[in-house]
């Protein structure tokens, strides 16, 4: 069990690094979703299925989606500005 947790921890750390060092936000949202799955696996290994469940729903699905929507909104705002000029 401890090996499992150690492996999951390492993967989570790597995932965090990938999220942080992905400079383009739309791609970052995809990585964030994967990071959410990694965290859920870690939480399961830590015997916290309820937390893993909310992590899957919130961290792996809802938050990346909100990020994606924000990016779309920002892009359309800026495109509208560019057309005005």
């Amino acid at each position, binding site marked *: 069990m401890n090996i499992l947790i150690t492996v999951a921890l390492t993967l989570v750390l790597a995932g965090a690094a990938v999220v942080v060092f992905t400079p383009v*936000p739309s791609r970052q949202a995809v990585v964030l979703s994967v990071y959410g799955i990694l965290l859920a696996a*870690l939480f399961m290994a830590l015997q916290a299925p309820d937390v893993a469940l909310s992590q899957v729903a919130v961290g792996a699905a809802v938050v990346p989606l909100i990020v994606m929507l924000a990016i779309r909104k920002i892009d359309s705002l800026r495109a509208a500005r560019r057309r005005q000029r």
Partner: protein
Amino acid sequence: MYPYVVAGAILFLGVIGIARSRNLVHAVVCLAVAQSGTYVLLLTVGYQRGATAPIFQSAPEKAGYAATLVDPVVQALTLTDIVVSATVTSMLLALAVQIAKRHDTVDPDELRSLRG
């Protein structure tokens, strides 16, 4: 020891990400990553070897595993934390959208309104 290092490193990575971010959406996502460090710390604190989740199918005394439960307190804390994180993230993203609308940029290097 290793879980603490990982949790601290995730928080650190998040702050580094904000420090070198060129896009406010990116910065907000990094903030969410920084917060996930706290989940890792809290849950590893509550974890004990050979334990199961604090969900009872029968009375804990009968099942005989009352002594080997994972700490329910930290799990509750982490659940609260995840909800808080989602709220904060969506609010800050809404602010980033507003900044894009008013300033026509989401690059912190180009935002000059609050200098000096």
